[in-house]
């Protein structure tokens, strides 16, 4: 059974930050919610409480960047760009400040409803010049995202998972290196963040049903590795399904569509995720099912692409264990 890791960010951030005094920890009244309460208590000199005032926090962080510091801003992803978008542009992105925007609770990972759900953050962030966008898909990537983010020469936005997070990978997140999780030839599945776990579940059932899936996991959304994705797309017979914890507009589905169109590659593409709709408050499994972002939705999309029924139902998917992917194709090998 897959290992669950409790609060992987908390330990990883503390371990990294104490070794790098120019790293500062900023919080906007969501300190324990972003797992940095322990860091605040143990390292108060490296922690800045900015209050519920995101506009000031972002410009202030720009000033800290001018002074040679590398602030890590911790809050829910949605609060990093909706209200303070102007400050994000003028004080952080334009001048390429080394500000690390740690966005917790991406997409439907919060029951907080519309105001708390960052469902268009990728589309916003990836269109901002100078911005890098990372997303963690498991505990190993959450642990690695701290150092990976701090290696970026400029601003970076990270979708971070909190709480109890499964460990799917045994090698750290490397900026710009997607993971090839299976090398099938029927359909290409592209996922990131929490949807990777869904796709792994679906794959287990699909393989038993004789469908050969090529599965890519992305952790670097910008820069988007179009060339590698196109190379994999060329290797599958029926087409591509993207599955993302985000609106299909502007996110991974859009980026894949752009890559295919620019290369003139005629492949069918099904984009799963939020379809031009807000979500509402609820549990993650409920929301993923309700909005067609789960393993079953992926199976149905693949059936549409291949034109073949698999006979896979909910029971079959529930029975599939999510094994750690130690045995799958190693990213390092490709």
């Amino acid at each position, binding site marked *: 059974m897959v290992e669950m890791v409790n609060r992987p960010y908390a330990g990883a951030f503390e371990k990294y930050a104490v070794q790098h005094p120019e790293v500062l920890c900023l919080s906007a009244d969501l300190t324990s919610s972003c797992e940095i309460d322990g860091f605040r208590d143990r390292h108060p000199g490296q922690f800045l409480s900015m209050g519920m005032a995101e506009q000031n926090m972002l*410009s*202030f962080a720009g000033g800290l960047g001018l002074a040679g510091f590398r602030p890590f801003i911790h809050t829910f992803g949605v609060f990093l760009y909706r209200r303070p978008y102007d400050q994000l542009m003028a*004080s952080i992105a334009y001048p390429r400040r080394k500000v690390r925007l740690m966005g917790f609770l991406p997409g439907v990972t919060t029951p907080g409803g519309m105001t708390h759900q960052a469902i268009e953050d990728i589309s916003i962030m990836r269109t901002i010049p*100078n911005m890098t966008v990372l997303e963690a898909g498991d505990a190993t990537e959450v642990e690695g995202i701290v150092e990976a983010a701090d290696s970026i020469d400029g601003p970076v936005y990270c979708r971070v998972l909190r709480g109890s997070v499964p460990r799917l990978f045994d090698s750290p997140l490397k900026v710009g290196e997607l993971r090839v999780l299976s090398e099938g030839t029927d359909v290409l599945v592209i996922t990131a963040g929490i949807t990777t776990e869904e796709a792994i579940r679906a794959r287990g059932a699909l393989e038993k049903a004789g469908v050969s899936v090529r599965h890519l996991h992305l952790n670097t959304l910008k820069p988007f590795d179009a060339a590698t994705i196109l190379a994999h797309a060329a290797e599958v017979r029926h087409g591509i399904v993207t599955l993302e914890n985000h609106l299909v507009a502007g996110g991974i589905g859009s980026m894949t569509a752009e890559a295919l169109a620019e290369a003139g590659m005629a492949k069918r593409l099904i984009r799963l995720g939020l379809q031009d709709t807000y979500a509402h408050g609820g549990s993650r499994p409920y929301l993923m099912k309700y909005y067609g972002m789960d393993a079953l939705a992926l199976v149905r999309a693949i059936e549409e692409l291949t034109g073949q029924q698999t006979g896979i139902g909910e029971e079959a998917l529930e029975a599939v264990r999510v094994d750690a992917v130690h045995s799958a194709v190693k990213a390092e090998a490709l």
Partner: protein
Amino acid sequence: MENQKTTEEVARGIRRRVFEHSMRNNGGYLSQACSAAEQLAFLYNEALNLGQPTLPEVPRPFGGVPSADNPDYVTGAGYNGPFEPHYDRLFIAPAHYALVAYATLIEVGRMAPEGLEMFNKDGSSVEMIGAEHSPGMEVHNGTLGIGLSTGAGLAWGRKRKGEPGEVCVFMSDGEVQEGQTWEAVQAAAHHGIDNLWAIMDVNRQQCDGAMDSVMEVGDIATKLRDFGAVVVEIDGHDLDAMRQAKAEPHEGRPLIILANTSPTQGMSFLQRRFPRLHYVRFKSEEERAEMNREIAAELGIAPIDYGH
């Protein structure tokens, strides 16, 4: 840098240059020169400890925006000297005061007069709304209200590093309508950022006209004090008062000097235009000629030859 002129002379020079520029270019930010000339002259000529400029007297053309592919990019802060720990840093928060700021750079010998000829010309770095790469600018402040926050962040960082240099923000009163200004003041007070000070041009004017008609802001001094700043109110055209205000102790808190000013100071002819003073354009050639005669006389210079 050694002062070549008195601060009074610099202030007079600022008004003259902005006036001359506006006459020749059929309009400009005249009222901002009227209200802020003493403040900017005070900052550059005596209040701030700035090193020698690191950028050429005649500004280079636009050299591209910051990007990983533009390694030679520099901001315009080099006109304020190098980033040494003991030197002060300045932010011009209302970036539309750029014309006044450029005139100040010329008056204090940090930029060549030719620099003003490049104002608002395509391909020039001497932009109408001061950009990060414009002379004397260090960040983009064209979106009002972000300047004090940036200054507070830089000041916190400099204090943490033990740098003796201060951070100064030149502000405009309209910015108090932005919520971010209040977030910045409370954060600076909460974190004891006392190497930060600001001087605010309280001319009671904004783009649409007199501030009271656009959005009443009440008693700015009381509000700033309530948010944790040390506040001194002065006549913004009285340099001695300005010097005294700068000397006000403000341990553990930011200092904000409210410089009460007239948007027509030194160019009283502009009172005819009240309350639409944000950007003065001439309504007719007759008005342009009359303004040229009258304001030049008040400034003690010959009328500007603008080619008519």
